[in-house]
């Protein structure tokens, strides 16, 4: 318990609670359970994407293409739904996840087999995927009235007082909490990012491990493609434009070290919630969107500064040659 109180997650949780409290003083009712549930639901997509991104960052890589992947998969499912309203929604979700996995695998293969730096690979695929949205749709929008009620209704459907979207986010969090701590692959993510050289000597295939991180991030981006388009009931080329930076910001605020090997699922979730709360709280407090951007940016830098004081452990004997 004392260890938790000293962890960066505890600091972040404290900051999150302080933020909610502050917003409550400016706008009574902000901290009401109903509003908090609404904020969580609004942040669901960011949480899911941030978890995928966390896996990638843990392996000392980065995925800038998630938002474009989301836009492409969202557009494809929207067009399928518009063309064939009879297709069951679960099938469309499978298609979304499937396309997302393939796009993620493309990133992963380029990083693994061609050894191209991840930032370059995903900067490229960010543009390519976004361009494909335009090619697939011809630049046309898929509007609410073209989508079936089932398609739009699924993320909003209420189960035990929570929308399905929130349940999906909770399920994703739970799955990651288990997978990261209890599977070899989860452990390999930390090993590869923490010390790639040592990971090789431990029999871990660094490239393959990174590949799987990209595949996971891609699959989740695909899932979010459907969720996003269905929830906002519109698909167009610029859906979620620039959202990749929010995802990375959530990870960084959550204490996922950009240098890899350090970070937790809890951290990523809290980071996403912190960012989500800022975005919700500032408008109700009547703060202009430009200030919001400045405040979000400040939060990132403060978060990194706070995390900096914890070094991931000294490397002894950097210079053992005497």
């Amino acid at each position, binding site marked *: 318990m004392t260890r938790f109180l000293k962890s960066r997650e505890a600091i972040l949780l404290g900051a999150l609670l302080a933020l909610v409290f502050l917003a409550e003083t400016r706008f009574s009712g902000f901290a009401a359970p109903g509003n908090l549930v609404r904020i969580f639901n609004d942040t669901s997509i960011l949480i899911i994407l941030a978890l995928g991104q966390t896996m990638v960052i843990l392996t000392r890589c980065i995925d800038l293409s998630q938002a474009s992947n989301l836009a492409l998969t969202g557009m494809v499912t929207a067009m399928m739904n518009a063309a064939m309203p009879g297709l069951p929604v679960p099938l469309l979700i499978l298609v979304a996840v499937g396309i997302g996995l393939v796009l993620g695998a493309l990133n992963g293969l380029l990083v693994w087999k061609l050894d191209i730096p991840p930032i370059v690979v995903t900067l490229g695929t960010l543009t390519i995927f976004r361009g494909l949205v335009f090619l697939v749709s011809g630049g046309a929008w898929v509007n609410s009235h073209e989508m079936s009620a089932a398609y739009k209704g699924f993320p909003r459907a209420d189960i035990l007082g929570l929308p399905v979207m929130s349940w999906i986010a909770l399920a994703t969090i739970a799955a990651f909490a288990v997978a990261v701590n209890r*599977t070899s692959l989860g452990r390999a993510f930390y090993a590869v990012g923490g010390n790639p050289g*040592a990971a*090789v*000597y431990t*029999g871990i295939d660094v490239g393959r491990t990174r590949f799987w991180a990209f595949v996971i991030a891609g699959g989740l981006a695909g899932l979010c493609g459907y969720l996003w388009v269905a929830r906002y009931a519109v698909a167009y080329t610029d859906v979620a434009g620039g959202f990749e930076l929010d995802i990375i910001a959530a990870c960084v605020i959550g204490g996922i070290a950009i240098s890899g090997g350090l970070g937790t699922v809890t951290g990523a979730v809290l980071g996403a919630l912190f960012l989500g709360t800022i975005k919700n709280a500032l408008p109700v407090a009547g703060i202009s969107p430009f200030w919001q951007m400045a405040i979000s940016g400040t939060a990132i830098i403060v978060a990194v500064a706070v995390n900096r004081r914890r070094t991931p*452990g000294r490397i002894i004997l950097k210079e053992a040659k*005497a």
Partner: protein
Amino acid sequence: MKDTSPESREVLSLEAITKTFPGVTALNDVALSLYPGEVTALVGENGAGKSTLVKILTGIYQPDGGTIRVDGAETRFPTAIAAQSAGITAIHQETVLFDELSVAENIFLGHAPRGRFGLIDWARLRVDAKAILERIGARLDPETPLKELGIASKHLVAIARALSVEARVVVMDEPTASLSQAEIEELYDLVERLKAEGKAILFISHKFDEIFRIADRYTVFRDGEMVDAGRITEVTEDQLVEKMVGRTMDAIFPDRTFDPGPEILRVEGYRHPTEFAEIDFTLRRGEILGFYGLVGAGRSEVMQALFGVTRPSAGRVLLDGQEIVIRSPADAIAQGIVYVPEDRGHQGAITALPIFQNVTLPSLPQTSRHGFIRMAEEFALAREYTERLDLRAAALDQNVGNLSGGNQQKVVIAKWLATRPKVIILDEPTKGIDVGSKAAVHAFMAELAAEGLAVIMVSSEIPEILGMSDRAIVLRDGRIAGAFEREDLTPEILVRAAAGYAEVA
């Protein structure tokens, strides 16, 4: 050589220099003097403190104690620039130059001639570079990008760079290590020129023939201490070897009786395009096989190939009489061959992960059910092996980064033992760890061998090879230079085989 009371005109002198790193004393109360127009050879085994001394001389390390004098005046080199402006320059084993820049740019990087408005005067830079290259007899075009040059030419550029700053002291750290015979001859000529120009030269080398050929003086380091110094004419090769290896076996090694089991590993005709060739050896259960050689002799490279980190171009590996193919470390681990690398910082422990996760990392399949790790079993496995290695840590969920060097090494060894290997390769297992941990690692190696594990120990420490090995193989320049039974092992035999000095009887 005119010899007018040289003691009074030393250019550079070090007195009582001490330097310690966590857990290791790299230099203890050493002295060194360099004289103009003379070559001083610095000899010593790997780990004797030579490189540390060079780093102190060039301002990269700060000594913990002692005095540096230039022309008799006490001084300090807080930065590499400070050492350079005091006229000290070093030519390293691995030349530290810039591949993408031209020869001329490399020579003058950081002190290029300036023209108007403080901009670099390119025309003069080229002319000056040409002049310096001619001075050292190097036929190089100043415009050539450095990456197009061979190692020998790069050395020449490094030397030209040294002269361009009007160096008075030139440190050469194993300059001939990667040169051909013809190139070495050219280097000797150059050293003569530098001597004639009155430079004081510190020449670090393992090769006795060249020491006796070009040095005027010698200084011997052993285990971080200066053992002897004098004029080269007053010493013989045998005496120098003896001073280098010393007669004391101060470390205490565990008593062990070698009870050889059946052959477990056989390596035949092992070859790598650039690192090693004609490597044949066998290993038996219960045996500790030492691999000795100078740094760069190819010992680690052979082991890395065996472990699947690099691919050999030819050769067979037989384990228990069965030929095996190792394509990756995962293959090697699956076959029961594990490797504890030398560079623990970069290849050993994952410092941001807790102890128990480091230990179980290669054993996760054994502690998992249906793809999920069983934490209790994982913890038990980690506890079993850390206890066996007598690891002193507050808790197993403590991060490895907070442990001392000796304990980090124990974590890495525990990690491999937990995979229950057949062959364990330990690369410099006690390098840079404190004496207490060293003894623990040695005792443990003896215990492993007694249990029937086959151990390969790569070591640059002669006492360790002598004290621990049942047999020892010496590598030189990527080839086996000799294989010796325990009873035949002496420090002299090892040094001679490794350095290629004289014929081993």
